[in-house]
């Protein structure tokens, strides 16, 4: 099979899966729906492995047909297979396949089982398009398409109005970012005469050669693309949709709202790394937004009682780390964390799903507790995920997170300090979650307790695979301090070779210093875990119902950001809509139109009264008018 056929199969098979299940899913047995849904992703995964092998030899661009053109503007349906896109593809279809498999068990009793798999396949289709596109517009197809799937899956249980509102909010917030992205694309075309990655980045080389950094145009372009990334990857100020997105089924949260879609913003910036390297100003903005979001979201995570909400804020926070990496120019480290995060966060969500499954749909950790005996596999795997995200060696998160922290320290020690504090907070809220769920005594009712059970094997097998990945994934990037080989850096070297000549700001850490930083962070995290265990293991049902006070209340209410947005933006916008409709539209503009009509009517009625029928009056009026005309003629015209 040639590469063009492989790409076509990889993209189209998930789409075919979507069509089959969407159109005929209600008429065929569930087992067939599952086979179509999972099978199509498995085929795509097989194709992507072939693409991976081929990309190791060098990049390839495959063009199918011309999509949009006008004069010199032309966009093709064209795909780029290189080391960056294939890594993303492997994550999407690899993790994606596991999550599809898991869903077979998790969604088994749902009436709209077929619709669920149809949407999930559609998501994979769009996500692949996003990362495979060879120009910004094909990427934008995927970019908006995954937003649609996110909308459909958040609002999957469409009878619930809150879920529908969450879905709508996600789509609209994403669209705000999308507008930035779109204008960024226009600007790119205007500057480089093309929106193909190849030509744009070749054009950008000119800036590097001329040592032209922080050019206004490049700053605008990079900031606009970053606005798109803020929406998609849930950063401040457009992050509030992601916690609400937890309304969707849990495997969806794992796939879309943790492992893949929300990392699209990272991908696009890494893809455009040449442009970002030309704009240190934008990079600083990204680092600041990233670190602020990481810290801010982590603090909210401390006070959430919904197990999925904790993980959602944790996702926002971890995405913040990735942006910090991009902001300090460590694109490879950002990708490294993207990958390990995909493993351990998908794992954590799926574990949470397993817990929720056992609890009969309950998500409130206050009524859980002591589950580790009833759900041993879920417990072990979730512990793995928690250790990974907390950055305990040798789990995957340790390597990727500490790499980001080290790079941040080289750039600016303040970033490192805030990043470290965030890491400590992360460990606290994650272990709080683990302890509240699996330790202590069960705090739910007797019915729930009798129902507790370990999940079926279609669910536990993906957990185990992801747990292994969360354990070994970090070995792809062993730091030099440990004398290991950084496989991922070597892998990405060809991708980032085009910015090799960009001067590196900041200091280079000595090995001893790097070792000290690492020791400090691991030490502090261990202390944090110890305190978390003291605080949360022995929680009783009574202790749970305390109303949070002071700062804790602020955290539990997520700093009231939703309320602030509602008061400052949503309500005034609605009010203004009604206002312009009633006053400007109906009273003023339409009133004027009708007024002209009425005035005509009225003047007609009035003037009619002059038609009295008296010849004398007519002669009199005629004479007066003639006199006036003569006067006008004499005085004004001549």
């Amino acid at each position, binding site marked *: 099979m040639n590469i063009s056929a492989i790409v076509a199969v990889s993209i189209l098979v998930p789409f075919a899966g979507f069509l089959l299940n969407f159109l005929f899913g209600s008429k065929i047995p569930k087992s067939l729906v599952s086979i179509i849904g999972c099978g199509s992703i498995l085929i795509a995964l097989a194709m992507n492995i072939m693409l991976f092998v081929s990309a190791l030899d060098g990049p390839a661009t495959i063009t199918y047909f011309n999509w949009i053109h006008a*004069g010199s503007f032309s966009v093709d349906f064209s795909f780029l297979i290189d080391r960056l896109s294939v890594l993303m593809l492997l994550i999407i279809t690899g993790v994606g396949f596991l999550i599809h498999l898991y869903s077979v068990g998790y969604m088994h009793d749902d009436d709209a089982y077929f619709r669920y798999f149809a949407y999930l396949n559609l998501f994979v289709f769009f996500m692949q398009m996003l990362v495979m596109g060879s120009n910004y517009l094909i990427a934008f197809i995927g970019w908006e398409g995954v937003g649609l799937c996110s909308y459909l899956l958040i609002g999957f249980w469409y009878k619930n109005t809150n879920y529908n509102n969450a879905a709508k909010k996600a789509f609209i917030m994403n669209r705000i970012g999308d507008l930035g992205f779109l204008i960024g694309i226009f600007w790119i075309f205007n500057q480089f005469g093309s929106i193909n990655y190849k030509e744009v980045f070749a054009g950008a080389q000119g800036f590097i050669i001329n040592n032209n950094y922080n050019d206004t145009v490049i700053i605008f372009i990079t900031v606009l693309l970053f606005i798109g990334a803020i929406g998609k990857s849930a950063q401040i100020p457009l992050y509030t949709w992601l916690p609400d997105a937890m309304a969707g089924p849990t495997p969806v949260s794992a796939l879309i709202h943790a492992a893949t879609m929300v990392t699209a913003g990272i991908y696009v910036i890494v893809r455009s790394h040449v442009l970002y390297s030309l704009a240190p100003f934008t990079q600083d903005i990204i680092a600041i937004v990233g670190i602020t979001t990481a810290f801010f979201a982590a603090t909210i995570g401390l006070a959430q009682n919904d197990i999925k909400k904790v993980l959602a804020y944790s996702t926002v926070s971890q995405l913040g780390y990735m942006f910090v990496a991009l902001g300090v120019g460590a694109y490879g480290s950002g990708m490294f964390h993207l990958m390990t995060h995909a493993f351990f966060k998908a794992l954590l969500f799926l574990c949470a799903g397993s817990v929720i499954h056992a609890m009969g749909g309950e998500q409130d950790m206050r009524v859980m507790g002591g589950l580790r005996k009833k759900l041993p596999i879920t417990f072990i795997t979730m512990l793995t995920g928690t250790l990974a995200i907390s950055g305990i060696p040798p789990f995957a998160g340790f390597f990727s997170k500490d790499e980001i922290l080290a790079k941040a320290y080289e750039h600016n020690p303040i970033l490192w300090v805030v990043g470290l504090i965030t890491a400590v907070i992360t460990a606290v809220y994650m272990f709080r979650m683990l302890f509240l769920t699996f330790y202590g005594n069960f705090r739910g009712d007797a019915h729930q307790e009798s129902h507790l059970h370990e999940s079926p094997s279609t669910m536990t097998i993906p957990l185990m695979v992801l747990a292994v990945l969360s354990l070994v994934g970090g070995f792809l990037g062993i730091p030099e301090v440990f004398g290991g080989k950084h496989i991922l850096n070597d892998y990405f070297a060809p991708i980032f070779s085009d910015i090799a000549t960009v001067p590196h700001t900041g200091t280079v850490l000595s090995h001893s210093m790097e070792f000290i930083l690492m020791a400090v962070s691991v030490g502090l995290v261990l202390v944090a875990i110890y305190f978390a265990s003291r605080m949360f293991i022995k929680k009783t049902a009574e202790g749970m119902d305390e109303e949070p006070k002071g700062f804790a209340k602020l955290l539990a209410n997520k700093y009231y950001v939703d309320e602030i947005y509602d008061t400052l933006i949503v309500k005034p916008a609605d009010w203004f809509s009604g206002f*312009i*409709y009633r006053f400007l539209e109906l009273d003023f503009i339409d009133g004027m139109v009708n007024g002209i009509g009425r005035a005509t009517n009225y003047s007609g009625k009035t003037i009619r009264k002059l038609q009295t029928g008296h010849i004398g009056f007519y002669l009199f009026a005629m004479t007066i008018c003639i006199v006036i005309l003569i006067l006008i003629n004499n005085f004004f015209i001549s």
Partner: protein
Amino acid sequence: MINAFLIAWPLFSVLLILAMGKDRAKWTALMAAIVQFCVTIYAWTQFVPTAGVQFGTDMEWIPQLGIHFNVGIDGISMLVVLLTNLLAPLIILSSVRKNYERPTLFYSLVLIMQAALVGVFTARDMFLYYIFWELALVPIYLIVLIYGAENRVKITFKFFIYTMFGSLLMLVGILYLYYLTPAPHNFDINTLSNLHPDAHAQGWIFWAFFIAFAIKMPVFPFHTWQPDTYTTAPAQGTMLLSGIMLKMGIYSVIRWILPIVPMGVQDWGKVALVLSLIGIVYGSWIAITQKDFKRLLAYSSFAHVGLISAAIFTLTLTGLQGSMIQMFSHGINIVGLFFIAQIIYDRTGTFQLPNLGGLMKKAPVLAACFLIILLGSVGLPLTDGFVGEFMMLSGTYQASPWIAAVAGLTIIFSAVYMFRLYQSSMLGELKPVPSTRDENFEDVKGSETIVLVIIAFLVVIIGIYPKPLLDTTEPAITAILKNIPNVDIWQ
């Protein structure tokens, strides 16, 4: 000759309808429209985009006044004729479940209107064009007046007077141009395009024409007849108005204003563009809290048309090409959306969103088609709406990034009001139906399914492969832009 046939055939079909009697009126009309559509498709396959005006007929009509029956199809006309003759059978098909009183009259009016529209879109003699323009107004006026909802007399009167006012302004402009032509005078488009009146006169002519077209589209602030008329008109009337008739205004700007008064466009196009921009934001903003299904669609259409009009006045190839394809897409999408409004009304007896909800459970096929068409309307990539929206915004960007930023708000707004519309009608819990007409909300069936599936299919196909449509219009648009001196008014 094909062009003349496309005007004559619907008129001839009126005789067929009269001959066949009222029981068979709708099927006769449908067959006639399908024949018309097939001939149009044939013409399109024969059409050579780079070859200028084709399939033409030019005969003397009133030689004393230099008036010709001169019609012909270039790329711009081809697209709108295709749209008209594609939508006409769909609109007729959408009406077959609904038994209009006096069907012979109703379907005759639809077909007369179709003939007049093809005339408007292909006339190359401005007097002839004006006749068709007026002729198109009468059937729709009668359709709304006879078959409309309550208040129809008052609302149609306003609609009629408003559009007549615009037409008269245009007539003044036409006569002015006519007397500028070298004696013996004529109305030929080529003569008129080569008149080059002085800049001052061009300004006046620009406004005389633009206000007439702006009322038809409509452009802010000439739009207040539109929501009332769309809400009052019967479903098929609204579809004709929004799907095809408003394209008369857009088409005419490109066909007549740009070539005849280029200097007027340079002087005043910016004002028109700003009015259009205001319309985008203003219409969208009103749409987000509308409670009436049809009125919400009316304001959304008004906002979308604002973008089409704004893109024209950027005078960029990308912007104009975007306008052309968006005319096509908008026609398809809005007809689908108004049809859905009617389907829901037929079953529930209400257009009020607070009384609706949860219909997806009962009507999954309707919900799926609605979603696809709605995605076209919000311009999701791989739907028809995206191609046009992207190109138009790209055109506005070339004019100025700030214009693009304002115009681009449409992609946020449209998501707000469209998804609200979808949620409040399709999602949530099923509401008790206020009317007793249909206790158990039925999914679409028969002709309804056919129409919606065709529209949904077109939404996706055009989104994936718009090239044939873009190729049809590009040479003609390029030719028009070439004749505008100093196009880079924004640089």
